[in-house]
């Protein structure tokens, strides 16, 4: 029998919503400090060039300019986990976002004017913008700090992963069908509504640096910043202002951040640096563009036999966490559906393109697009139903995969069944396709970590609780709120467990000098890890309270209920704040304050990448119905059916918001979003040229949660918020193939791409003035998705 909850599972408004909807919330852009200076950065004009000279004399002479910083003036270390990224470039520039000079001035206008006055002489070089070209012996060394030759036998390889399980050759031999395809994935970006920002303040008196920084990982950030600036980490305090969107973009510390800190150190004044929207497109992270060569097999019955994967990722000029997305991709290839054998190779290759970072889904949308497309193709080759082949191979509870993931609970089959049935998959898939507007439906599933991911030495989170003399609870959590609703879930847990009403709960989570350690917001981990951490802290708090309550009520070791501000057993009850005061003012004279650190039971994977990396795993399926206008090529998404194993629904309102938001990003990835780079230059650095979906473009989203009640999660919950965008593009591509009989191997499915394919397909239809060769020329120029 499941326990009846008062708050868990009930739609709950955003805990911190009022501040945000009223304009009271202070985002980085809204901060003003006394005497604050404004920073601006001069970036390179060319993606690949030698810097012959930098003349800053006019900028320095400008009234109101307080500091002009070049690489020569900065005694710093390289950043990024590969330490291959100088924060200010000297001698050469490697991609169009490269920072050369920074300025701090008394106004934004003066800072910008100073930037215009700086003269840089370049010797332009021919860049390498195609990772396949970068792999050739004839290619120049792109990143001089790269360790490719020593580590990976090629000077331009930044990172490489190899994984395998099972007997690939034997599985191949017994396969009835083998499908080999190349998939090409575009470069897209987070497009957070708030642009990147930082405000830095330094006191030469104390040697302390305070950073108001929009990071998702404040404790790792602090460590990275300390390394970059050659400071003691503990002399750095990170305060997160309200963050206007993260989605993974704020995992890496970017050069502008230590640059701003340095300006503050040099001037001993607060300095603020705000990105313009154009700068945000040019110089914030992106999703990895990549080429995936995928070979998959299935036997006569349709059981999957093997997968062989080779991936080339465009690393860009420097390395970011984005280079580690194969961690996640290999899970999908090794463990989404049952697979006897898998071989996976991924290489991140330096180019003169901008570097990619982490982005909601962390490689998984790319991997899932390839895999779920191949599954459709195998079903077609076998003459099998596309739902049936997926159900036949679906993951199941108790499964231990080839990679060593333990599926203690698994909602893969119920999720698939839900979308097949609710989405009327078979009826729509087999309906005749006639007329101008052709409808189709596609399926795709996904696997993602649901209980954090142990990719750092600790995947834990600390919580400190303070219950004050008046019965108000302060939750000091290591976790971060970036809009996703973690504060709300934590408050709900506290309300549920302690019977304290919401307006008596405060959450402190923005200050590294105050809050306990946490690895950060990523890997769909916050509700899971911070929730478990809070539950741990609450049980410590209850030990104290129970003891005193029992004493005050003269009852022996009872099972107390916490409700409506009371601690109660049967007819006996006492106000919670009265108990707190008695602990404080009477023996044992203690405060009701406790601290707890939760470390998930997950394992750090071995060198072969085997191990149970997460506390639990999330499964989801989507069935998406589309309509293709065969006269324009426009694809319209009509209905999205999402079913997801979320363990348990904690806050249905917040969860639904995560689902819908994820799906929207997934549709954008599938249909409209693409950063168009030509020879290292971004052609669409604006919201006008980069097509986010609008309110008018959103289809209906139906959500069917699967509650598997996983023992590892708080109340059985699993991480949920990356999953909804992971299978979306695959389901859409499969739906388009169903509608028009044409399959696409690259994203986005722009109207032009679709119409071109339709025209190619229908040879014999009279065509007119148009020349296909011209179109082909343009496509060629665009290259293969890079």
């Amino acid at each position, binding site marked *: 029998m499941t326990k009846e909850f008062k708050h868990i599972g009930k739609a709950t408004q955003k805990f911190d919503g009022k501040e945000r909807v009223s304009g009271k919330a202070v985002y980085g852009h809204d901060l003003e400090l006394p005497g604050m200076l404004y920073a601006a950065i001069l970036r390179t004009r060319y993606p690949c060039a030698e810097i012959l000279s930098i003349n800053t004399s006019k900028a320095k002479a400008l009234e109101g300019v307080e500091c002009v910083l070049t690489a020569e003036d900065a005694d710093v270390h390289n950043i990024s986990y590969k330490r291959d990224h100088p924060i200010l470039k000297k001698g050469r520039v490697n991609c169009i976002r490269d920072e050369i000079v920074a300025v701090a001035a008394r106004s934004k206008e003066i800072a910008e004017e100073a930037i215009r006055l700086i003269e840089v002489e370049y010797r332009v070089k021919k860049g390498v913008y195609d990772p396949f070209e970068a792999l050739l012996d004839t290619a120049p060394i792109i990143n001089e700090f790269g360790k490719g030759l020593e580590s990976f036998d090629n000077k331009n390889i930044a990172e490489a992963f190899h994984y395998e399980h099972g007997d690939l050759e034997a599985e191949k031999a017994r396969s009835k069908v083998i499908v080999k395809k190349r998939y090409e994935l575009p470069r897209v970006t987070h497009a957070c509504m708030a642009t990147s920002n930082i405000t830095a303040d330094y006191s030469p008196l104390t040697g302390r640096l305070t950073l108001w920084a929009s990071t998702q990982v404040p404790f790792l950030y602090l460590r990275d910043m300390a390394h970059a600036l050659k400071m003691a980490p503990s002399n750095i305090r990170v305060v997160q202002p309200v963050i206007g969107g993260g989605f993974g973009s704020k995992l890496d510390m970017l050069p502008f951040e230590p640059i701003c800190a340095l300006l503050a150190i040099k001037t001993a004044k607060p300095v603020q640096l705000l990105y313009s929207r154009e700068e945000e497109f040019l110089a914030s992270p992106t999703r990895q563009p990549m080429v995936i060569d995928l070979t998959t097999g299935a036997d006569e019955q349709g059981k999957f036999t093997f997968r062989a994967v080779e991936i080339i990722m465009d690393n860009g000029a420097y390395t970011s966490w984005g280079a580690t997305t194969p961690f996640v991709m290999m899970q999908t290839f090794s463990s989404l559906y049952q697979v006897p054998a898998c071989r996976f190779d991924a290489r991140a290759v330096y180019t003169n393109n901008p570097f990619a970072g982490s982005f909601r889904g962390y490689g998984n949308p790319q991997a899932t697009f390839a895999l779920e497309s191949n599954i459709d193709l195998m079903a077609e080759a076998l003459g099998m139903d596309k739902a049936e082949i997926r159900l036949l191979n679906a993951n199941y509870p108790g499964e231990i995969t080839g990679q060593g993931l333990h599926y203690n609970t698994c909602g893969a089959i119920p999720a698939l069944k839900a979308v097949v049935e609710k989405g009327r998959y078979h009826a729509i898939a087999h309906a005749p396709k006639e007329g101008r507007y052709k409808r189709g439906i596609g399926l795709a599933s996904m696997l993602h970590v649901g209980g954090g991911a142990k990719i750092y030495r600790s995947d834990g989170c600390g919580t400190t609780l303070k219950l004050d003399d008046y019965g108000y609870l302060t939750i000091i959590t290591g976790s971060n709120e970036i809009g996703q609703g973690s504060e709300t879930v934590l408050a709900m847990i506290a309300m549920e467990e302690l019977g304290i009403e919401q307006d008596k709960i405060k959450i402190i989570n923005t200050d590294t000098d105050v809050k306990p350690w946490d690895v950060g917001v990523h890997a769909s981990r916050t509700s899971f890890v911070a929730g478990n951490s809070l539950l741990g802290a609450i049980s410590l708090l209850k030990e104290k309270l129970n003891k005193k309550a029992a004493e005050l009520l003269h009852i022996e070791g009872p099972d107390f209920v916490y409700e409506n501000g009371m601690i109660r057993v049967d007819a006996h009850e006492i106000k919670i704040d009265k108990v707190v005061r008695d602990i404080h003012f009477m023996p044992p004279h203690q405060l009701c304050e406790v601290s707890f650190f939760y470390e998930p039971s997950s394992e750090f994977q071995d060198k072969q990448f085997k191990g149970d990396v997460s506390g639990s795993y999330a499964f989801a399926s989507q069935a998406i119905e589309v309509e293709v206008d065969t*006269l324009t090529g426009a694809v319209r998404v009509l209905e999205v059916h999402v079913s997801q194993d979320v363990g348990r629904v904690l806050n249905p309102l917040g969860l639904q918001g995560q689902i819908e938001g994820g799906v929207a990003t997934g549709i954008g990835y599938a249909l409209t979003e693409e950063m*168009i780079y030509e020879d290292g230059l971004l052609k669409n650095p604006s919201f006008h040229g980069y097509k986010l979906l609008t309110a008018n473009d959103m289809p209906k989203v139906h959500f069917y949660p699967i509650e598997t009640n996983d023992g590892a999660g708080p109340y059985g919950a699993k991480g949920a918020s990356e999953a909804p965008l992971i299978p979306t593009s695959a389901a859409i591509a499969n739906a388009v193939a169903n509608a028009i009989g044409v399959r696409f191997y690259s994203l986005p499915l722009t*109207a*032009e791409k679709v119409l071109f394919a339709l025209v190619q397909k229908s040879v014999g239809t009279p065509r*007119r003035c148009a020349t296909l060769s011209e*179109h082909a020329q343009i496509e060629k120029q665009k290259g293969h998705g890079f």
Partner: protein
Amino acid sequence: MDFEVVTPHTQSELLGAIAANQGKNFRIGAGYTDLINQFKLRPERDLTVINIAQIREDTFRNISKNDRCIELGALVTASDLLGNDTVRKEFPVLCEAASSVASMQIRNTATIGGNICNASPSADMSGALVALQARCRILNVKGERREEPLVSFIRGPRQTSLEKHEILERIIIPQNTSAVIKSGFEKIGARKSMEISIVFLAYHFQLSESGIIEKAGIACGAVAPVIPFADRACAYIVGKRLNELKDDEKEAFAQKVMEYAAPISDIRASAWYRNEVLYNISKALFE
């Protein structure tokens, strides 16, 4: 972004301001929804903006109607058009074009005069007005007026026939002579909103009671340096019964429209796509 601003409040102040700035580099600003981005992208030194946003006079502001025509002041906004019953009922092509402009906030400030004088080949409202065979009334600093068909007023990308001493005052649309119309605006973009047209087709047909096309107006956008009025396509279709066109007639009509298309390839779409789609939507107009 830095410029001087002169803000006239009346027509005479406006003409005075234009006269006084003949020797200077000036631009006329009304809704600013495009102009501010232009200023940011291409900052001009020693620029004066003659800010006409605060002119209240009817001649620049109102939508009026008589037996022969409906007139729009140059400062009429896209939202004003959407809120006007006559435009909604009698000129759906203009209403749909106004509705397809960017967003509500932009429509609330973007003016019809700005849309025209910006002279973009993809200007939606201009396209509808070309299809409606609208004329421009132009005022000069001496207070003299001249009229010119919109289709010739727009000379090329960002070029109009407007002299430095002139300003666009009003736009004049001939009244429908029939109560039966088929009128609309087909816009092709990468998403449903916030788009500059990849291609558009503006059409306004007036029919007899029995469904014969008596008058036709067709304009297509983003397929040529200007917004062409497809008069040969119009001539071809006039006299035919709208609902009884045969496939080969629809194709012939589409071919006539294509005679006006000479698109370029840009970041939004290739010339191939623009041609293909213009043909397809032209042909599909009667389906």
